[in-house]
Structures are given as C-alpha cells and as structure tokens.
C-alpha cells in the first residue's frame, strides 16, 4: 500500500508521541537506579529503563531518516511545548507503588500498541515492532507480576496500590489522546487507532487488576488527563528536560 504525503506527516506525529513517551518514562524510571527497593529489582527496573531509551532511539532514528534531524538533537534540544508525550510519563517517580502502577498501565499499552504496529503498512515501524517484541513482553510481565504480588501481599500494600491506581488511572487514559492525523493513520493502514488500542488495553488491565484484588474506577466517571499529545504539559516536564539535557547542552557538538 502506498502512503500519501499526508500519511507521512501522520507517521511523524505518531513516531514523535511514541518516542517521546519512551524517552521520558525511560528517564523517569532511571531515577530509581541505585535507590530501588531491593538489589534485584533495582537491576531489573534500571535495565528496563535503558531498554526504553533504546526504543526511543530506534524511533528517533526513523524520524531522522524522514528528514527530522539528528536523533540526539531531536531528543535533547526541544522545549517542553515541542514534546508530544502524555502526562502519565511526566510525573515524578513518587513512592515505588506510583512508579510500578505507571509502569503497569504504560507497558500494557505499549505491548498492545506494538502488537498492532507489527502489521503496519509503514515498514520501518513494523520492523521495530517485531524487533523489540521480546523486551516489551518482559516489561509487561514484570509489571503484571508485581501488581498481582502487591495487590494481595499485606493490608498496607493493598491500600498503597489502590491509592496509586486511583492516582494514575486518569493519567493513563491520556495515553490514548488522539493526534490530528488519527483518521489518516487508520485509512492508510499505518495504525488501527487509539480507540481500538484503548479498548484492548482496558480488557487486558482490568483482568489483571481484578485478579490482584484491586478495583478499577468507572471509566466514564474519570476525566482523562489530556493535552500532552498537542504540546500542553504538566509542570513536571520542563524541569525534567532541564536536568536530562544539562550535560548535552554544554556542548551540543561534542562527540560521545
């Protein structure tokens, strides 16, 4: 299937939001490195954070090949308003249950999104989707097991997990905010769309949450945290970018 000029604009928009999500959550999760709750979990969580940066790089590479400039420049030289990430990934790491719940909601969406993209008419994207399948499978497995473990471990863990769930759920719904090219993505066979993804995600996460003994709020009663896909971000993104790019900006032309 041939992709139109508008289709390529739509692909860029899709790539930006995916890559920015990966970069920002990767950076956030790496903030646990050395501070994780137990050694083994510290290693696992850090390793997954590194995977996320790798995924963002693979997507920025595609953007770069489409004429969007050098991957490092795209990643490190933009302001918050130029980012397309959702609010979920921007929030500070909080207590561990917050980071775990975010990881759970986010990676289940990633798993399904990349599953859908494996059939994309845009070959570079379907290639990446197939290549990183195993890594994302582990990420969601890691999240699912932790959720079911802590959902029933003790009274305290249960309360903490339920509070974290209530706090993250409106943010998680923001993952599925549509871009301006949603219809083009669907009609050109690039991506089946956020609605389909959200429906599959709801069915996946609600099963695990129920099994863990936790409760999902009524979706219709929740106002999703929207705006991230169109450059409207939380107060937390710009300070993160300042910190993340501090060294790079000293000398953007330096060879690493």
């Amino acid at each position, binding site marked *: 299937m041939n992709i139109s000029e508008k289709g390529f604009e739509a692909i860029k928009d899709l790539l930006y939001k995916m890559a920015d999500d990966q970069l920002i959550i990767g950076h956030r999760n790496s*903030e646990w490195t050395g501070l994780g709750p*137990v050694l083994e979990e510290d*290693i696992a969580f850090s390793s997954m954070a590194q995977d996320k940066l790798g995924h963002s790089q693979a997507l920025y590479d595609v953007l770069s090949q489409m004429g969007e400039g050098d991957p490092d420049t795209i990643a490190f030289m933009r302001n918050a308003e130029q980012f397309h990430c959702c609010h979920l990934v921007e929030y500070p790491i909080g207590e561990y249950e917050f980071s775990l719940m975010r990881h759970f909601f986010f990676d289940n969406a990633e798993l399904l999104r990349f599953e859908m993209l494996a059939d994309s008419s845009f070959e570079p994207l379907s290639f990446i989707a197939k290549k990183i399948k195993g890594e994302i499978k582990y990420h969601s*497995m*890691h999240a699912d097991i932790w959720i079911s*473990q802590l959902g029933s471990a003790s009274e305290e863990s249960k309360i903490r997990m339920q509070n974290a769930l209530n706090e993250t759920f409106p943010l998680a719904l923001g993952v599925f905010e549509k871009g301006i090219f949603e219809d083009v993505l669907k009609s050109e066979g690039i991506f089946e769309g956020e609605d389909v993804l959200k429906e599959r995600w709801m069915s996946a996460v609600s099963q695990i949450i129920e099994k863990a003994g936790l409760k999902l709020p009524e979706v219709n009663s929740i106002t999703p945290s929207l705006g991230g896909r169109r450059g409207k971000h939380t107060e937390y993104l710009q300070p993160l970018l300042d*910190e993340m790019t501090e060294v790079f900006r000293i000398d953007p032309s330096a060879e690493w």
Partner: protein
Amino acid sequence: MKIQSLDPRITRSEIELEKPFDEAKELDQWQTYEVFHQTKRGQQHQHVGCVHAPNAEMALLFAKEVYGRRGLCVNLWVAKSSNIFATDYEDADIFECEEVKTYRDPGYYKVMDRIKAFKEKQQSI
C-alpha cells in the same frame, strides 16, 4: 541541614544530615533462590548464582534480568536454596584421592599415553 549532593535525586529527597537514615531494623530479607541457566536447548542447565525473592514466580522474573539479559540464555530454572541438600565441608576428605589410584580416573590412560609419547619424542631429538 539537608544533604546537598551532586546527584539531584539525593538533593531532591531532602534528607536531614543530623539523622540521615532510619535505624537499621532486624533483617527481614526474602529467601534466596538458586538460579540455573541453559545456554542452548538440549544442554544441561548450569548454576549461575542466586536471587532474593518472595516466591518462585518473582525469582524467575529477577533471574531473567540478573543472569539472563546478556543473551546466551534460552531457559531458566530457580529452586529454593533451602531445598538444596549439600555435603558438609567437614567431610571434604571423602573427596581426597590417593596419587597411586589415579589409574582409576577415566582420563588416566589416554593422557599418560600422550605424555609418554611426548617424552620419548623429546629424548630422541
């Protein structure tokens, strides 16, 4: 006074210098699981180390990242360390082997043949 660190994460945590850490509690660690990995289907699993975990499922989860993430692994086993039976180091003498009885070792004849042949060759030069 709060800790000012080069690591912004530490500074952000606003840790008081006067009483920086909670008092250490008695150890309440998870049990350990021994980890065995397999590098190729059909080959025997080999012991690679251990992980702390509350159950076997999480032990496998941790073992994957700690021991299986550099490729070369197709399968993992974990077993509770407490389920491993071992000999006593006090009895290590049961493994001692008398020099004269090395002819009972499987490799003895083959190796000795080669050494003898090598020596003879050296002498004849």
